[in-house]
């Protein structure tokens, strides 16, 4: 079998929180608590879950924008967590991020040219002329008019800003793009434009995406593989069609049933959950979902379920499917 482009094994990211009068007592926010997945070349993995489930932290951990507590992140075989600063910098050429908020992630004092030149400068493209050429080419690729090269970010609409964000990520020819909710802040008609652009770019450059989103319909549209996270853990991973057509984990089932369908003739039975997501400081001992799960039984309170294979390319972490 070929080596996956990105191989994440048992990733843990915990944030310490000091409490008490003399700040001696330390508790940990277990934002990501032992998750594993792989992304193959040219493929898209959708990472879905609700706020606070650790999906964004996972993305940031992979690029080492936040420190990794434990586990391995291998990019083409090299362990990212063990790289020195200069090696990491070199490695970041290969994986770039696109952020959610196109208003906050671009410096308002820089022009499009400045914004797109920054990664080139940081990675040693010294000739100004070459930089300009590459920037103009990239603007064509993402569908920005070349004439806008000396405009400032605030002069653009949300959709265009997101195009700038994508151009900035692509300009170093990475193989992997980590996109953290890239369309969440956009209007529907603009969202469709950006999703189509992402698809086109993937075909053109053979990009792999780690696509982080809370919107299941977007994930269904764009992703080959889907990973559902809940409270820092993996609930279900596998082929997107399989997960959407035959969700196994009660959480995935709920999530899917909660999406409003844009057709009044196709309304369905909804599973309405009780309560909110528990705090990641003190997660339940057994399954993370146990407090809200309609099908919880004794074992769920005491043992933490591990991912188990349920068929070709479909894994679920739930005691309902235990053999014994």
């Amino acid at each position, binding site marked *: 079998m070929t080596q996956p482009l990105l191989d994440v094994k048992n990733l843990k990211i915990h944030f310490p929180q000091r409490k008490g009068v003399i700040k001696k007592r330390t508790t940990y926010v277990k934002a990501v608590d032992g998750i594993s997945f792989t992304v193959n070349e040219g493929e898209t993995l959708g990472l879905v879950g*609700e*706020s606070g489930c650790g999906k964004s932290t996972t993305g940031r951990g992979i690029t080492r924008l936040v420190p990794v507590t434990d586990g391995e992140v291998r990019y083409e075989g090299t362990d990212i967590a063990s790289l020195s600063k200069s090696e990491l910098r070199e490695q970041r050429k290969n994986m770039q991020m696109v952020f959610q908020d196109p208003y906050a992630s671009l410096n308002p004092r820089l022009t499009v040219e400045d914004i797109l030149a920054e990664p080139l400068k940081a990675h040693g493209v010294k000739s100004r002329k070459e930089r300009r050429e590459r920037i103009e080419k990239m603007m064509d690729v993402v569908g920005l008019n070349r004439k806008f090269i000396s405009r400032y970010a605030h002069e653009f*609409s*949300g*959709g*265009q800003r997101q195009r700038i964000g994508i151009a900035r990520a692509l300009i170093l020819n990475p193989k992997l793009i980590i996109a953290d909710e890239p369309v969440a802040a956009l*209007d*529907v*008609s*603009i*969202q*469709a*434009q950006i*999703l*189509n652009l992402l*698809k086109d770019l993937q075909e053109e450059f053979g990009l792999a995406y780690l696509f982080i989103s*809370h919107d*299941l*319909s*977007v994930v*269904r*549209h*764009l992703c080959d593989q889907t990973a559902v996270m809940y409270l820092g853990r993996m609930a279900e991973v596998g082929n*997107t*069609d399989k997960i*959407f057509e035959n969700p196994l984990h009660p959480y995935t089932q*709920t*999530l*899917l*049933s*909660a*999406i*409003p*369908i*844009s*057709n*009044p*003739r*196709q*309304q369905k039975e*909804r599973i*309405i*959950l009780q309560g*909110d*997501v528990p705090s990641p400081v003190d997660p339940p001992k057994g399954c993370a979902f146990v407090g809200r799960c309609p099908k919880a039984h004794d074992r769920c309170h005491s043992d933490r379920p591990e991912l188990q294979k349920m068929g070709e390319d479909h894994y679920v972490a739930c005691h309902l499917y235990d053999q014994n």
Partner: protein
Amino acid sequence: MTENVLDIQDLEVSFKSDGKEVKVVNGISFSIGAGETVGVVGESGCGKSVTSLSIMRLIPSPPGRISGGKILYKGENLLDKKERDMRKIRGNDISMIFQEPMTSLNPVFTIGRQIDEVLLLHKNMNRTQARRKSIEMLELVGIPRAEQIYDSHPFELSGGMRQRVMIAIGLACEPQLLIADEPTTALDVTIQAQILDLMRGLKNKTNTAIMFITHDLGVVAEMCDKVVVMYSGEIVEQADVDTLFNDPKHPYTVGLLGSLPKVEEKQDRLFSIKGQVPPPGTVEKGCRFAGRCSHVMPRCTEEDPPLLKLKDGHDARCWLYDDQFKGKEAGARDTAAAGRKEP
């Protein structure tokens, strides 16, 4: 015929910017009957929130100004009311739920105090009665341990809980009309499902009319009886929910529905409307959607299309449906309606 709870007629709202007055709501009319839920959809900047703020007379003035039209609440024009009378209506007859449950509650007062406030103001209750009613409201919106939550502060609650509190405040005086401005946009899907379920239940119980402002067409399909689609300050189409989703006529509505990724089926490519919404005040004549429309005709850039009545309760603002053009443009019209299925 029963009287409508709300009747908006030719409403115009302008904002002053750079010394120039720009119309952001340009002559819209629609009505909401008792117990009816009307969805107002559109993208950012289409004027949907400005419309709702106008009903409450909460447009910041200056720079904003309601420059024309009428807003009839049970037959009385709200625009003629004195500020003092408006204050009696707000929160009592008409109340509003906002998008951001995090910012629309006051962080320094307890939940209880914020619900009590409306009751003390409008319902002549004393503190004990208000407290009892508030706790009852909290229970109604499905908050567990209501007595404890009554004494909590907003920061102690999650987003979903805060939105429930907002709904409790909104419904405390049993309003005739509830304006919900993107009430679930900031929430996760499972929490959104809880809140929508709650609103549906309450509507059936209290027969409140709801104006539901959202950009999420899925939520509209699920919640509303009638839908008003807005684009650039105008109504481009309105119909009952079934007609709008299954037989949309205006190219913008068709495009909007086509650009939604669907969870039920896998699509290869999304239909996308090219370009972007023109900034208010930039389209001088003709249809405001003409620049992005795939069925644009010469007439569209010359003459502003009126809201044409297609059949009872279904209107669209598009020259494709003008009677004079019937034979000639029938072909174009069929493609417009079929646009959803285009790849």
